């Protein structure tokens, strides 16, 4: 998995590509844990994320919980496979997902 990030004015934009699974989830977790204190706005672009497992969901849920306390979190451009996992698990309801029209 590749993580691309851009941080300015308390907004962190992260773009994920590849697989967010048990192996790669800790990388994202570490990235986010280091940023929570400085940001109020978290945007995660999943347009290039092909794969997500429950390990990834765990990170997203934790992130959602953190950001709910001090700002907001938006998920953008969710691919079909990932969207399906979100739908199955009810994550579509608890995450703020912005899809391109």
């Amino acid at each position, binding site marked *: 998995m590749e993580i691309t990030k851009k941080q300015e004015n308390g907004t962190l934009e992260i773009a994920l590509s590849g697989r967010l699974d048990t192996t790669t989830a800790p990388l994202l977790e570490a990235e986010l844990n280091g940023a929570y204190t400085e940001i109020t706005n978290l945007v995660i672009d999943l347009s290039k994320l092909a794969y997500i497992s429950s390990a990834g969901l765990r990170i997203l*849920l934790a992130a959602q919980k953190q950001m709910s306390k001090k700002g907001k979190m938006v998920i953008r451009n969710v691919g079909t496979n990932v969207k399906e996992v979100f739908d199955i698990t009810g994550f579509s309801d*608890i995450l703020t997902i912005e899809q391109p029209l």
Partner: protein
Amino acid sequence: MSTEKTADRNKDKRKKGFISIGRKVGVSSLICFILLMSLSLWLLSDSMNKVEQKLIENWLDTTIYLLRQELGESEERQWSMHDGALYLGDTLIGDGTKEHANLDAFLRMEYATGALSYVLMRTNNDKELQELDAVGNKSYEQGHYIRIAGTTKGPNGERLEGTYLDKVIADGIEKDDDGVFIHLSNVYGRMIYCRYEMLYEKGDKSRPIGLISNGMSEEELMQLVKDQKKRGYAIFIVFLLVISVGLGRFIFNILRSINKIRDRLCEIGTGEFPKEPLVLNSKDEIGEMAESVNEMVKSLKENQRIVAELSLATDIQRHMLPSEFPAFPEYSSEFDIYAMMNPAKEIGGDFYDFFMLDNKHIALVIADVAGKGVPAALVMMIAKIMIKNQTLLSMQPDDVLTIVNQMFCEDSQSGLFVTVWLGIFNIETGLLTFANAGHNPPAIKLSGEDFSFLRNKPNLVLAGMEGTRYHKNEIIMHPGDRLLLYTDGVTEATNEVTELYGEARLKSYLDIHAADSATELIHGIRTDIDRFTHETEQFDDITMLVFDYKKRLESNAAEQKFKANTEELPQVTEFIESELNKLNCPVHALMQISVAAEEIFVNIAKYAYGETSSGVAISIFPEKEGVSVCFKDRGLPFDPLAQKDPDITLAAESRQIGGLGIFIVKKTMDKVDYKYTNSQNILTITKFF
């Protein structure tokens, strides 16, 4: 074996009281011969006595006739008398004087026949008679006859001339209408048979002019008659002998021929066929009989050859059916197979077959050719070979039957059709693909349930109609499942009250004996059928094949072991994705399976072994339009499916992260199955495409 020995043995085998035809004919012929001989001789001797007198008369008659010939009597030369002398034509025969007696013809006759003969002239000449009287010693009377020529012998053999005839005799002759008289008279102490014939003047019966006479002593005549009789007997006996010998030879030949035929038949009876044909030189019924025997030997030889070839054909047929069990020892833990065929006649039309198509597919065939005997067996062999060849080529049972049917319809003129059930079983996945050409529904036992019949609608029989398309059916078998293929010889076995064995009895037997091995089961059913039919003759071939699926084949290619450690995840993912790609898994399903596999693997890695780390075996096998992935570990027994599903309706703040992975698995997979056997957690997920 030589003919003599055969004949000897047959003599030994003869029943008490045997009497040969030869002896019968011999004895009866002998009796007949003796009777016939006696009768003939008696008749002959009787008639001989009767003809004795006749013989004498004939002899005398003949000699007088010859004498007349000798004298030269004819139409032109007739007897006449003038001037006291007797003439024949112009020739003077005699006038009673010695000088004029013409003796030559009489002497020649006497010389030729031994008979004495003379001619007498009727005379009234007393002088002559007196002269004669002086010579002879008899009185005479007028109007009687004087001997004028001829030969007569006296008691000492002297030739007498000029004798005259006794009046008694003369009167007798003249009174006799025929002018012929035979008289036995004593001439000088010898009894002489004499024959007299009247001579008339130029044939005029009213004018007797003389007598011609001949005679022979009774003694000599009897000798002649005796000789004649002897000749008669001799001829008769020779005739009889010739007939007897001929008849005997004839009967002997017939008997010899009959014996030859008898010996030949006995030889044939022992089962040994003579190389040389039986040759009898008789063109009669016996000759025909020998010909028939030769023909019989020919056709018996032919029959023997056919019987031998038929038994060879039976052997070939028997060997065509795989009959070594266990048939596939290398697969002994995966499946067991057992089959039998009991033909109703020597050679049957049923067959079964099974063969591996590759290292994980086995073909199972059962078929029944309509009809029995050699024609059915020939069709059976062709069907068996064609089905096997086509199955090895195409591996799709519907295609196989479609093609084989086409080939049959193109070539077969026999009108024999074939019912076939053809299944191809995947030992890895348990997928059974089958097609049915008019065959009985196989019985199947699935997932621990009772037996049922695979009643998918069958297609038409093979060789039934050109262009028939056969359909494919699929069913998944699991380890522990059992399949029985059989022919209608099983369900249509009939008892003495014409009840059929039937599917119900078969199913009941199968259910009760579910624990039997394949071999025990088949022999058990066979015994059960025999018990049912009791003493009714088996009229159809009985053929059965049992297939026991014991264990999935674990293919090396699709199974890999991993350490139960999350660090192994990339390898697990790579293995699964590459295997799924091989199976042409759609991208979406691939992603779902990949996620599910990760969840399960991570679950095992995290929880199964506690502190100690061990392995996970992952195997992938194709399903009917899908795929299954199996995870096996020897960790603590743990059924992830038994865990409570997370509440996905809660708000983010309240959500627990645990249990989500297995939840995703359950939601995205079509089937998730957990088992704990042999100290193994076995979790199988199945996804259909």
